[in-house]
């Protein structure tokens, strides 16, 4: 030991060098993987957006019109001169440092491919500073309002598009009948039961709904004539939203406001339906996007204006939109050479193609959305059911106790089985034995549900376990049965945690490729699927297929765009999960 060389009467000298070297070595190891991943992500972003061909003028234009106003907004929201000084110092000092370092490396050491010092500055300095300022800004009142509004707009559009996609495979006529015969009466009964405290009516809601849905499926083959699509969607989507809006506002007293809350959405929805039909956008998708974007946004704006705090923040979406438009105008007016990104609107709306310029991801995106929607339902139900059983319904000892331990060990082992083996299960059991078809959405989602089931269960168990026991005992003491305790106390408390875990698990499912290959999912399909039993492709399958193409345009352009699309969706899902968790933790 280092103290051995103690001399005479005083304390020994201990060399600090080894300790410091070790500390920095371990710090280096901690960030090594992250740095490697960061560099790779920078390159894939450069390839996807063709930034290697972006002229410095183009970068400067958008830096000035988009990034600078955004940073200004964040700094304004933070309202802290120290942070402002630090941010400006980092941006300015970083500019000098990166430019000097980059030029020196290029001149003396090695030529860095496809990277200019402007891009390096953008990724090494501007991106982290923006991230940090976004975080700091979102903690201020103005920033919280701005990002809240932005999140509702972006999230609403994303959810709306995803839900609209589902209508591509589900028969909207069945939906129409099921809604009219099942959902509407059930909702009515339930509402009546809650309103009048009539227990029987409320508990009859579920059976009535189920009977209605079954009747709808049966009647679909019998009835021959239906109203037009637009009327169906107005009736099943716009009318209930308008009605709920009117009811909620009426509950607060004002009759005219209630009429407005009901009438305005209905009128807007009708107009949108007609307009979208004229513009070639599928009517239901436009309606759904409008509903899930417009309603929360309107409510949020109303609440913020009522509260009167941070109203300036509502301008953030306008600021960003104005920045994009101003940048585009400048680029257009002065003829600044602009890059030609692979990832653009046509990429996500077109089918795959042999020519790289025309290749698109649309059918694969649709496939992924549909598979994930099914997986979400299946794994949520199975996962929550299992975790409730394991946490609430089993005893710690005796036969049941050892059964529980067996289940627990089994779940841990299931989590460690390679995904390709789950693919074999899907192939042997679902595709071949049960005849659900090779590479169909049903086979794929069953397989992926089983794959992520262990993760869902483990996270749901943790969420349920974190509910304090006092709450359970309190409920028991009031004479509640186990199911009543579970339903009324445990599940509401644990729900945010369960949801977070499920979304994170779904993030795993959306990137899985090996099981899809094993069950024979198509590498490339040229049109979006129209039924659950069609042969599907999914985003990772399409990336896998394209990565094998020999042309450089595919390898470096089209696949990079696909990777970025997949990663953006993943970041969106995981970000939502983390936001949910943070909000739940703050709530407690």
């Amino acid at each position, binding site marked *: *030991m*280092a*103290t051995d060389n103690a001399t005479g009467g005083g304390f020994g000298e201990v060399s600090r060098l080894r300790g410091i070297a*070790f*500390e920095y070595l*371990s*710090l280096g*190891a*901690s960030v090594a*993987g*992250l740095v490697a*991943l960061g560099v790779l992500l920078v390159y*894939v972003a450069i390839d996807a957006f063709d930034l290697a061909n972006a002229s410095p003028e183009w970068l400067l234009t958008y830096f000035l019109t988009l990034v600078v106003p955004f940073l200004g907004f964040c700094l304004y929201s933070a309202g802290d001169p120290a942070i402002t000084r630090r941010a400006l110092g980092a941006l300015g000092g970083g500019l000098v440092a990166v430019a000097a370092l980059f030029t020196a490396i290029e001149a003396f050491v090695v030529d860095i491919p496809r990277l200019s010092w402007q891009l390096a500055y953008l990724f090494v300095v501007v991106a982290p500073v923006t991230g940090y300022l976004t975080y700091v800004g979102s903690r201020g009142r103005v920033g919280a309002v701005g990002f809240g509004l932005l999140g509702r707009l972006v999230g609403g559009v994303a959810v709306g598009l995803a839900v609209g996609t589902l209508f591509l495979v589900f028969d909207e006529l069945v939906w129409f009948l099921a809604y009219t015969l099942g959902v509407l009466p059930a909702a009515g009964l339930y509402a009546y039961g809650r309103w009048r405290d009539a*227990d029987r009516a*409320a508990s009859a809601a579920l059976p009535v709904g189920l009977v209605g849905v079954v009747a709808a499926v049966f009647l679909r083959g019998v009835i021959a004539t239906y109203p037009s699509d637009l009327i169906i969607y107005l009736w099943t989507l716009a009318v209930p939203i308008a009605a709920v809006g009117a009811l909620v506002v009426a509950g607060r007293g004002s009759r005219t406001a209630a009429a407005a809350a009901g009438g305005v959405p209905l009128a807007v929805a009708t107009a949108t339906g007609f307009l979208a039909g004229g513009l070639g956008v599928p009517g239901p998708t436009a309606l759904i996007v409008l509903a899930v974007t417009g309603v929360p946004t309107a409510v949020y704006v109303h609440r913020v204006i009522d509260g009167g705090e941070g109203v300036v923040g509502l301008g953030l979406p306008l600021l960003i939109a104005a920045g994009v438009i101003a940048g585009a105008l400048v680029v257009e007016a002065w003829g600044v050479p602009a890059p030609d990104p692979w990832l653009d609107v046509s990429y996500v709306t077109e089918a795959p193609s042999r020519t790289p310029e025309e290749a698109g991801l649309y059918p694969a995106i649709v496939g992924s959305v549909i598979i994930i929607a099914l997986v979400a339902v299946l794994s949520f139900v*199975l996962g*929550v*059911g*299992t975790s409730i*059983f394991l946490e*609430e319904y089993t005893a710690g000892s005796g036969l049941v106790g050892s059964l529980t331990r*067996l289940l627990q060990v*089994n779940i*841990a*082992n*299931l989590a*460690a*089985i*390679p995904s*390709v083996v789950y*693919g074999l*299960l899907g192939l*042997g*059991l679902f595709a*071949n034995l049960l005849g659900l078809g*090779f590479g169909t959405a049903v086979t794929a989602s069953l397989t992926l549900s089983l794959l992520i089931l*262990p993760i869902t269960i483990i996270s749901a168990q943790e969420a349920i376990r974190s509910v304090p026991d006092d709450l359970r005992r309190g409920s028991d003491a009031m004479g509640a*049965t*186990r*199911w*009543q305790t579970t339903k*009324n106390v445990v599940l509401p408390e644990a729900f945010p945690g369960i949801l977070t875990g499920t979304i994170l698990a779904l993030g795993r499912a959306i*990137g899985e*490729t*090996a099981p899809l*290959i*094993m*069950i024979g999912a198509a590498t490339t399909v040229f049109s979006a699927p129209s039924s659950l039993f069609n042969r599907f492709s999914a985003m*990772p399958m399409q*990336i*896998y297929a394209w*990565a*094998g193409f020999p042309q450089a345009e595919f*390898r*470096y352009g089209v*696949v990079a765009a696909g990777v970025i699309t*997949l*990663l953006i969706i*993943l970041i969106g899902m*995981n970000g939502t999960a983390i936001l949910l968790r943070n909000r739940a933790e703050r709530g407690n």
Partner: protein
Amino acid sequence: MTDSTESPDLQRRSGLRRLKEGTYGGLFAACAAATLLTTVAIFVTLLSDAVVFFQEIPIAEFLTGTNWSPNPAGGGQAFGIIPLLIGTLVVTITAAVIALPVGTLTAIYLSEYATPNARSILKPLLEILAGIPTVVYGYFALVYITPALKATLFPEMSTFNALSASIMVGIMTIPMVSSISEDAMSAVPDELRQAGYGLGATKFEVSTGIVVPASVSGIASSYILAVSRAIGETMIVVVAMGAQARMPAVREAAFGIPYINPADILLESGMTITVAMVQIAGGDLTGGTIPYDSMFALGLTLFVVTLVMNVLSDIIAERYREEY
């Protein structure tokens, strides 16, 4: 709670109520049983087709054969798993060389050196490494790592090679090592550290001489889990390593001592067990052929190996854990 209006049923005699309770309990039990059924289904599915395969190809031939060509152009199939085992082993070992030291150092940093603030930022960031889809890692290896290595270190490297795939598998498994090891290190009680400091040890000596030995069972079990994850990794190797089942060339050193040059394996294309399965799945899936059944034999091998490693890791974590 709507039931509060009714009179309490203290003896739980109400038939409907008990039926309801029982139904929900049964439903949850059924969900739990589904997880058990999944394991059984995996085992039965793998075994039933693997048995058919082993009726055609004897197990000894499967385990000792040095040639893997399930669908040769000219006929004459061969199902020897040895080249696949070599490919899997190479990827696993190379990945472990990256992931185990880096992961352990990361765990030491997070548990001993990092400030709470740094830890709260680093830990979720590290989880990102495990959350990136593996097909994306494979693409990175093929399109960025291989050209970079070719331009700098290994000019003779082939487009599809084991090295860049293994590097990516290693990076992917870092968080697996670091998070489980860190849990084990954080569980070491502070008294042990304080005792170390009391004896005059430096922070470095406490970290490496006290915390690491005290948490060695957790570290070992994290190693095993990471290695088992690397064995089952599919998409990275499928995309970046190519699909050539080869035995490495045996060279002769001075005095005729045979040796294998690692570069012959690492810088060339190869095939792992998982790649072999994916390659067959790209061909025919309807069943009834020997290649189809061979997939299940390979899957069974993989299943057994990962299961054994997982159980082993559990046993090590339990049996050799220091109790405080």
